[in-house]
């Protein structure tokens, strides 16, 4: 077998000391959406104008979405500094002060990357002690935003493909035993023990076996897998190869959703580069192991994240789930034994073999090992990616890392696990985040999307929102889900528009019970969870909608009434002009009035009024 050791040493020489300033822009999908392209243009422009000799590089999202655009500036013999909130207008000052003057701009600097070799700057915290990262443990995402995902050499110098090298010198059964010992459980939602899954596929008889990587990430509010694919694509390839070696497969498919064009581009490039380096294809590293990876691009169906629907979709069929058993490990893609894991699961595999089983098993809780990457969204102050050891509490994630609620409003609930998950109230914030604890309180890990909701969020509306999603995404194969999600949504629509009756609650519960036990696949089985969890923790809100015809959070349009505060109204007529249905009467400089009979509760008047005179209850 060929070893990568020498190559890695050579590369480290080449990369570890830079000879001129290097500026790296975070260009993940989120960075680009925040204007990273424009920052890049501005940089090129300014550099050319000033005649500076600098390298401009591109990396992926480092996880601080709330601070996009992120830019890293590194000078020879100084630690790199990462800036947040960089706009084209700020580029010049950053260049002049930091690159030319070697004085980082303190007010925009988020942290510096200390490496022990160079003297750190004063007054800039290190990444590890910065607000956002102090409570994080970046293992799976360690390369995200730090290396160029489009250059395999940068993966290699950060010990990439070391796990694969080790594995190729080990017996497949030993590899599976190691994964079992690591305690790794699937990151795709269910938390199924990965080693056991591999064992099934390994033991299944078949002249041909497949590896599948589920990169369909369809949960609204989740973008961990995208960040990994964009930021560290080789880690996913490496994990798949290790799995392939372990179960005896020589071909793999990555099923990526079409909405992730950048991830697809980077994966394609990574596959090409891995082939050039003899790390993919026939006789990998001159061993007897051969493996090839193809990319399949999804066509827009959430249910294709369900693994058997995904297999049908790869085969070119309608993405409707299959009956199980037989399980994919026995009869999967084109009827052959198939192992499917999630993106983050494969990234963990590469990590485990690089850093060791025991090290891995020492992180996390008794039954949930390692770290978990979460995407923090909603009304949280700092939106972004956060990686923490399993067992960290929700409170730590939301407050210590996420900085609490935006605009200092009050926390109401956190939705975890996407459309299959549940909404947890304040008093559940101290439960440790692991697979089993979450199930106990009626939520689930899901893929790791955390949507934070504040006091202005209506929980019935949230349940309705998720049902709208599940209803639209039901594949239509089985009755309880196809018809049940539709009826559940109708009931919720009724309640939120003030036409609910108390019997509706019992109907929802009965429907939920049957959908859970009787639906064919996970979508239908878990679709009622947002309803059940909000009914469990926020039943009073349902009752307020039904009995009092009132939305306590002031969200549900049909239940709101608008009126004008005579004290504050100065008679500017702005509201009357804004009202689309002419429900507002009043003349200049006279107090205006809203006719509730005509008002369609659109809220246009409230937006138009500069004097806070419009009241909504």
């Amino acid at each position: 077998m060929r070893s990568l050791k020498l190559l890695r040493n050579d590369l480290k020489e080449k990369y570890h000391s830079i000879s001129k300033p290097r500026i790296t822009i975070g260009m993940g999908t989120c960075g680009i959406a925040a204007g990273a392209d424009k920052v890049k243009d501005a940089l090129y422009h300014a550099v050319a104008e000033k005649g500076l000799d600098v390298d401009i590089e591109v990396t992926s999202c480092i996880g601080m979405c709330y601070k996009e655009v992120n830019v890293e500036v590194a000078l020879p013999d100084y630690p790199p500094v990462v800036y947040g909130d960089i706009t084209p207008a700020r580029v010049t000052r950053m260049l002049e002060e930091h690159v030319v003057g070697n004085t980082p701009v303190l007010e925009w600097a988020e942290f510096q990357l200390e490496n022990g070799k160079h003297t750190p700057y004063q007054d800039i915290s290190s990444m590890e002690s910065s607000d956002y990262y102090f409570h994080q443990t970046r293992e799976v995402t360690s390369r995200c935003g730090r290396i160029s995902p489009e250059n395999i050499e940068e993966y290699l110098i950060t010990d990439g493909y070391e796990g694969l090298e080790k594995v190729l010198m080990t017996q497949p059964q030993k590899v599976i035993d190691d994964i079992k010992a690591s305690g790794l459980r699937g990151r795709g939602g269910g938390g199924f023990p990965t080693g056991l899954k591999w064992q099934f596929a390994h033991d299944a008889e078949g002249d041909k076996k497949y590896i599948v990587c589920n990169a369909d990430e369809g949960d609204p509010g989740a973008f961990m897998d995208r960040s990994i694919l964009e930021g560290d694509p080789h880690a996913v390839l490496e994990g798949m190869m290790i799995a392939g070696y372990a179960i005896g497969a020589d071909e793999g498919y990555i099923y990526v959703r079409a909405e992730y064009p950048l991830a697809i581009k980077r994966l394609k490039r990574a596959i090409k580069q891995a082939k050039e380096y003899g790390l993919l294809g026939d006789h990998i590293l001159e061993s007897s192991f051969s493996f090839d990876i193809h990319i399949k691009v999804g066509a827009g169906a959430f249910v294709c994240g369900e693994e058997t629907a995904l297999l049908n979709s790869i085969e070119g069929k309608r993405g409707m789930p299959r009956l199980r058993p037989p399980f994919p490990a026995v009869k999967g893609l084109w009827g052959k034994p198939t192992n499917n894991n999630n993106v983050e699961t494969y990234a963990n595999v590469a990590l485990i073999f690089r850093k060791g089983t025991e090290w891995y098993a020492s992180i996390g809780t008794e039954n949930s090992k390692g770290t978990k990457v979460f995407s923090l969204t909603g009304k949280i102050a700092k939106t972004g990616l956060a990686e923490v050891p399993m067992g960290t509490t929700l409170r730590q994630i939301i407050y210590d890392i996420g900085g609490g609620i935006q605009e200092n409003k009050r926390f109401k609930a956190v939705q975890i696990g996407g459309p299959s998950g549940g909404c947890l109230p304040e008093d559940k914030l101290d439960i440790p985040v692991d697979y089993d604890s979450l199930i106990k309180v009626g939520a689930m890990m899901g893929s790791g999307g955390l949507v934070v909701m504040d006091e202005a969020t209506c929980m019935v509306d949230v349940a309705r929102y998720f049902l709208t999603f599940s209803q639209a995404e039901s594949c239509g194969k089985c009755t309880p889900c196809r018809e049940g999600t539709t009826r559940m949504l109708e009931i919720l629509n009724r309640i939120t528009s003030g036409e609910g009756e108390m019997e509706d609650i019992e109907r929802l519960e009965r429907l939920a019970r049957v959908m859970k036990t009787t639906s064919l696949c996970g979508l239908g089985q878990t679709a009622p969870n947002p309803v059940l969890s909000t009914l469990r923790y926020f039943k009073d809100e349902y009752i307020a909608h039904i009995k009092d015809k009132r939305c306590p959070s002031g969200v549900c349009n049909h239940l709101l009434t608008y009126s004008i505060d005579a004290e504050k109204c100065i008679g500017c007529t702005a509201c009357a002009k804004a009202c689309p249905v002419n429900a507002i009467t009043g003349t200049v400089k006279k107090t205006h009035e809203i006719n509730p009979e005509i008002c369609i509760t659109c809220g246009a008047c409230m937006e138009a009024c500069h004097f806070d005179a419009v009241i909504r209850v």
Partner: protein
Amino acid sequence: MKKMSDVTLTIDGKQIKVPSGTTVMQAAEKAGLSIPALCYDPELSIAGSCRMCVVEIDGMNNLPTSCSTVATEGMVVQTKSKPVIEARKMVLELYLADHPLDCMTCQKNGNCLLQKYAYEYQVKDTPFKENKHRYPIEDNNPFIVRDMDKCINCGKCIRVCDEVQGRNVLQYAYRGYDTKVTTAMDVPLIESECVFCGSCVAVCPTGALLEKKMIGKGQSWEVEKVKTTCPFCGVGCNFDLNVRDGKVIGVTSNPESEVNGRHLCVKGRFGTDYIHHPERITTPLIKKEGVFVEASWDEALDLVSKKFLAMKKEYGNESIGALSSARCTNEENYVMQKFVRAVIGNNNIDHCART
């Protein structure tokens, strides 16, 4: 082949031994218990989609479908537990929520599986009374009426057209609540590749697919089924003539038919209207002075034999030949060749199906 061993399982307290590979539904049937099923058909692949056949099995999460779950040694199954009954009732309520509920005038009345189970589980009404699908009824071909409002998406028509008829005319289209069985491009059957074999009609559990000619001609309990052989070709398919008050109103296929099972072609299934057609000739006709005049059989046969004798006499034995038909029975064909050989006296006998 591997030797089939037996497994023993308990269903509703009864112990039963079945060959391995048997499904729970089949085992239950063997134990004399029937489990409701809407999408299952013994002649088609298993879909497992209606979820009517769910049961409780010790050690399994949720309620597995008995049509698709294979019995294993020591399995303990409940087919009538509380959660099972609740689930089946709910499935029925959900079906009824999207159904026209005009059973009184439905041709399938008395013969419809949805109706049968609604009765069995006493599901009188549905709590979900908002939207229903409203598709136009497809009635523009001579044979089949398609009313997708009555379709329960069991998919049997799709599978029979694919797995038995091999035409693949039908498939699910769209998604979720709007999932619908359609032809390619969602056009009427008459514009598709359909050959109107009617196999889909034969497997449809509801009034979604109906024999057009039978609509309004009689309800299931008014109809007598008379097993007969198809007169159209030599295959000899069997089917049931549906007879009401001595009149044939249509044909339904019978799974017990030895030659063809439920399978028929367009002629056999739909080609019976000639039986009572007003233009059908029911007595011999003799042309007198240029016009056909009704005659008795004696009169007609006398005339024919007279003419044959005259021809034989004038032109010789070889001047006469006979062509027989595949639509005749073997007996009739036998008689025909006997007649030519023994009575006419030559071998000029042939048959339409020979070429």
